[in-house]
């Protein structure tokens, strides 16, 4: 019964319904938590998780067990988050030609996003790549694992973490002055 996630995933890739079902119920919470960290809002996280759940069965067919399933899943999640961001950016660019209401709406949206606490500001102000890296490392991934997921070297992950620290320190200093 205590088959590893990777074994379950291999079985699911081969068409085993029950294995897939067990796998999904096991990893859903992890997935959702990561989605929340990548997006910073419950609403966005739900939509992202749905995207992933919808696409996972097809993606899983290509899973060959070269990487740990969790690693693989995280990679899928990070890529899905990138896709969503890219779509949002396209939409945003297109919106500049739109009437006042759309721009006001987006301004109001970003304002609302800024009102939340130190945490979301801290994460939100980081560039996307640092943020993704941090989300993984704070989820108890080693730098090496995070590197594997993001497709960068372990050294790059370490460098990004130290960059993220710098950002946080500056932010903290700014806040302490207030």
């Amino acid at each position, binding site marked *: 019964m205590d088959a590893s996630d990777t074994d379950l995933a291999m079985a699911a890739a081969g068409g085993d319904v029950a294995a897939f079902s067990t796998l999904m119920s096991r990893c859903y919470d992890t997935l959702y938590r990561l989605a929340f960290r990548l997006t910073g809002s419950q*609403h966005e996280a739900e939509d992202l998780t*749905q995207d992933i759940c919808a696409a996972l069965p097809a993606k899983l067919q290509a899973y060959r067990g070269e990487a740990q399933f969790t690693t693989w899943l995280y990679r899928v999640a990070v890529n899905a988050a990138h896709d969503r961001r890219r779509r949002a950016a396209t939409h945003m660019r297109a919106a500049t030609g739109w009437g006042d209401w759309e721009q006001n709406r987006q301004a109001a949206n970003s304002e609302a996003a800024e009102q*939340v606490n130190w945490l979301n500001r801290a994460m939100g102000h980081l560039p996307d790549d640092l943020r993704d890296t941090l989300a993984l490392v704070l989820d108890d991934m080693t730098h090496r694992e995070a590197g594997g997921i993001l497709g960068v070297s372990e050294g790059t992950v370490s460098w990004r973490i130290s960059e993220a620290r710098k950002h946080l320190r500056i932010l903290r200093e700014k806040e302490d002055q207030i």
Partner: protein
Amino acid sequence: MTDDLNDLKQALNAATPDADPATKAAHLALAQKNFDDLQGSRDGARPISSRPNRGFWTGARKMLNSLTSRAALTATTAVVAVGFVMLTPMGNGLLHPPKPMRTEPGVVSAPEPVELARDESPKSDGLASGLTQERTREPASDLADARSQGKVENEADAVSGLAAPAEQAFSTMAEQIIEPPMALPYEGDSEAYANEAANPLQITAESPVSTFSIDVDTASYSVIRNSLMNGQMPNPDAVRIEEMINYFPYDYPAPVGAAFQPTVSVSTTPWNPDTRLVHIGIQGAMPDMENRPPLNLVFLIDTSGSMNQPNKLPLLKQSFRLLLGQLRPLDQVSIVTYAGSAGQVLAPTNASERGTILNALEQLQSGGSTAGQAGLQQAYAAAAAMTEEGEVTRVILATDGDFNVGISDPEALKAYIADKRDSGTYLSVLGFGRGNLDDATMQALAQNGNGQAAYIDTLAEAQKVLVDQLTGALFPIADDVKIQVEFNPAQIAEYRLIGYETRALRREDFNNDAVDAGDIGAGHTVTALYEVTPVGSPAQLSTPLRYQPAETADTGDELGFLALRYKAPGASTSRLIEVPIMADMAPLPDAGFATAIAGFGQLLRGSDYVTNWSYQDAIALANRTKGDDPYGYRAEAIQLMRLAASLSEN
């Protein structure tokens, strides 16, 4: 150095919410469904669970059968291979587990046994043994046919051993929604409201003309009601006074032989004894509903993940079920979804086939791939296919704020909807749920689509919008209705239009038929109120100019002049109606209640012009003027005033 990171980590852990159980169940069901769909093509090829018990000859015969239908080229090899399978101990083992082999020279050209071998490899055997016992292997097509929403959810639950059945999770959710924590403000969410600063006081001598488009939307009132019912004062920006006033039907004089009848009255202002209220009431004609033209409705439904809440998709289903009861056998309905499982869910179907429609509606679920987003085009295509000469066609977009309908450039979206409007297909927007509601976009889309924007928060509201006022919402009787009032500076020193801030038009737009404006549906009533200050009144706020004596044209007692333009549905040139406004015009029968609502709205907005007048005064006035109130809308409004009165004291 590491402190920051640790703090952040702790904060993150604390802030990460648990996955919502209902959403989780839906997502898992979706994953399961996609998984099943994907397996569909190979289900037939996979072994059934009785496979190991099958006799030796069955297996061999089956293999031979499948082999004979293969290309003749491989036949010789295959026969040799079969011989190998049958005769060697190893091959024998292949057909009789427990010693399965993954690769065999003999089965290379026979796909089915390959599948068999793979599925029964020790890997899946070992890990799934405890899970697969009750698994039935229905053919994929049967599964798909029999799949109703509930079934899929239950199936997912049963298989995965998830906590509670989805239905139960839903009802728990419902309880939570009905009694939400009072302290939870909506302000932090991504709601966006369309509003402008309240109309300022105008000095008649400087700008005597006021022009605006009429508005029959009611969304603002529902949003306000929802806030107050949740124990919060509504965001002042969410208050559009004209939508509050126009939420209620009024008993204005009915038109005789015309599309609608404007009536003007002048009365005293309850919140200022020194000003007057000019009340413009428009009553739309009620066409003969017995012989109404057939109606084509395309429901364009948002099925994004966020719709998966009791006050969204389930409420939507109930609402449309109510609407269905109002349709005639010749009416047609089609359902298109977007943002989730995209595509046409129900091809155009006659309303008489109630079962088919209800079934399609019932099967809607938030979920599916996000790939197909061309929902809007598809909806209009369906609408075009349904339309025949003399019929009325309307797309009804239902969403909680995800307008990713397939056109991401808002300008193109607006143009697209306007273009379709000109070709006769109108668009109405129904908003569901709070938190992500995009009021501004809703307004913009409905305004461009010549439709109504309404916000559905309760089944009672669905009843009002989709049943009681169905005819008005769906059958247009006049398009592009614009109002222009010119005030007489000899009589009126100052004036102020109450509400309609988002509907202001330029003076020159009034006569320009190319400029779009609001529409009136069958039986709609529209009300506009001006607060005017007579010349010489102590209420006058501006001091008359010293060097510019007021012009006095010889127009007698006229306070002003009302001009109204409208087009017959589908027509391109407008018609004009003109009515002088006299000081002694008798008050309209229902003017009092509209005034009470106007005062209430201004209090909610925090208007500078309504002072020395409180919610209690509004309640008293509304109670006095409530009238018949057959549907109980007005009683509810008074209840809301009471709530606002209590909440504003905190």
